[in-house]
């Protein structure tokens, strides 16, 4: 079976759990930005939780099914409409051949996930079906979906059924203001004590330049750098370093003005000092931030980061148990 794209939406891509192992040559992880919602969608339709699904950004697509299927929509709050009738979110439902699935505008959150029983059956490249846009490979022809694309759907490995629900308290929260926990480090020592304080004290708003590569934040006070003679090869700006690898979730502040958090389509390295890293448990939250949503950065240590990671994993385990 296949689904045909009638309207592509703003940035709809095929994504899965990602493509680790090639960051050393500049090929990033890719995969669903909000892994939590992505996994929930797959579990609802009885897929392996790493199966490829559609990530729909800000403006969701409109599509037509050529065969019956079981589907589920999770993540951002954009009401799915089947032939004009609203369907539940965070719950599997059935579609028939010829049905048209559209979405309301995104009231909350930035990324909705559409999983289809059987998964989207695009070729596996370097171990993943995820789209890597900059490299123009993976997913559907290495790009965002366009009008007329026909996505092949795999055969379901387990019987899927409609009406499977995500327990309400386990759905991804979609706040307009959030806290993002940061382990300071990397080149944190390069900013002044005052900037180390203001960075965590200020409220930052998501700038329009926010995508799968990185999220840019504005409205906080600019950061000041400690005086030094720039090292050989680093470049003249005090925010420059000798080009180095960028961790996922690392926060760079070019010129000290607007922090950029790198996400799963990250550029793998460059010459801007990073002042810390968002903890792994909070990366999904970033994926659900629309432009102008607010964040405060909260300083945590490694132990707290590991504890938050355990909580995150425990939530996923509860979903797995609930949907078994």
């Amino acid at each position, binding site marked *: 079976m296949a689904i045909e794209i009638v309207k592509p939406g703003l940035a709809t891509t095929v994504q899965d759990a990602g493509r680790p192992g090639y960051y*050393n040559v500049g090929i990033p992880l890719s995969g669903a930005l909000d892994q939590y919602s992505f996994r929930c969608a797959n579990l609802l339709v009885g897929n392996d939780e790493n199966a490829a699904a559609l990530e729909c950004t800000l403006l969701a697509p409109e599509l037509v099914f050529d065969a019956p299927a079981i589907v589920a929509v999770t993540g951002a709050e954009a009401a799915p409409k089947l032939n004009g009738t609203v369907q539940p979110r965070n719950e599997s439902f059935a579609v028939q051949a010829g049905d048209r699935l559209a979405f309301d505008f995104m009231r909350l959150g930035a990324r909705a996930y559409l999983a289809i029983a059987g998964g989207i059956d695009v070729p596996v490249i370097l171990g993943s079906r995820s789209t890597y846009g900059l*490299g*123009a490979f993976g997913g559907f022809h290495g790009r965002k979906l366009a009008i007329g694309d026909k996505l092949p759907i795999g055969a379901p490995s387990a019987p899927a059924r409609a009406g499977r629900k995500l327990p309400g308290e386990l759905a991804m929260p979609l706040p307009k203001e959030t806290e993002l926990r940061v*382990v300071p480090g990397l080149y944190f020592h390069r900013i002044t004590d005052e900037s180390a304080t203001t960075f965590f004290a200020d409220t930052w708003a998501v700038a329009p330049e926010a995508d799968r590569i990185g999220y840019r934040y504005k409205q906080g006070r600019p950061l000041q750098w400690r005086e030094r003679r720039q090292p050989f090869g*680093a470049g003249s700006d005090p925010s420059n370093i000798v080009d180095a*690898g960028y961790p*996922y979730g690392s926060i760079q502040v070019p010129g000290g003005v607007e922090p950029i958090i790198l996400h799963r389509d990250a550029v793998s390295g460059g*010459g801007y000092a990073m002042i*810390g890293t968002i903890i792994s448990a909070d990366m999904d939250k970033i994926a659900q931030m629309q432009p102008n949503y607010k964040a405060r950065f909260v300083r945590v240590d490694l132990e707290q980061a590991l504890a938050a990671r355990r909580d995150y994993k425990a939530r996923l385990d509860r979903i797995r148990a609930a949907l078994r």
Partner: protein
Amino acid sequence: MAAATARYSFGADEHVFVELSEDMSLESFFKGMAITDALTKRNVPGVTEICPANASYLVRFDPDVIHPDRMLEILQQIERELGTDELEVATRIIEVPVYYNDPWTRETLMRFRERHQDPNATDLEYSAKVNGYSSVDEFIDAHAGSPWFVSMVGFVAGLPFLFQMAERSKQIETPKYLRPRTDTPKLTIGHGGCFGAIYSVRGAGGYQMYGITPAPIFDPAQKLPYFRDFMCFFKPGDIVKYRKIDRTEYDRMLAEVDAGTFDLRIRPVSFSLEQFLADPAGYNKNLEGILYGH
């Protein structure tokens, strides 16, 4: 060598970032290569990415499999046990044809002139001036004259960062654009700070632009012979020698690329940091001999 003591820092719960030195140097690069090679060989469960860079490296791991403290211990242990024999590597030298001062990078740089330090000069004219060359031709000869070391691959898929194999006083150094461009032609030869780069894909960039190569360096379809092993051609440790070509040769090579018959001149070579540092000019001449078989 002056053994810089590495600085270790956690990138939250999934990364260790290790800075070997603040300055760029071949010693730091080699140390990073030796450590990341040793780590690769150890096959440590839970390690998911090992990324050597210019004077630092990055390791990503799964903290559910290996505790961050244990990860750190292993890296520090490898650094302590590092011998000096790793300063020699078996690598390859590659000729990269470059059409300098080509119309495409020229058109692009003119579009972004207001983001440049010197809006009235081209990137080549500006770089020649700030590096003390009396003409663009002299500057190009210097750029194509010495080999370059691939000291990092990344930013985007398959993009090599190149460190010029010359005494520091002779290394080309240029500022990056005041504000990055939103466009750079694919396969542009660029330079920023002390690093050269070959843009593997079209996209944003802040390096000065000097020319373009007809040779693809990233190809997910792996069409040309030198992509047999992988879709990214360059590896850290590769040595690059540029060769000036003109429009006629560029067009001919491009036709070969389209026909799938284009290949690069690649020769195996053993590189010794010690011998290179003792006599860079003489060593580079030998490298050229190996590349061209004389």
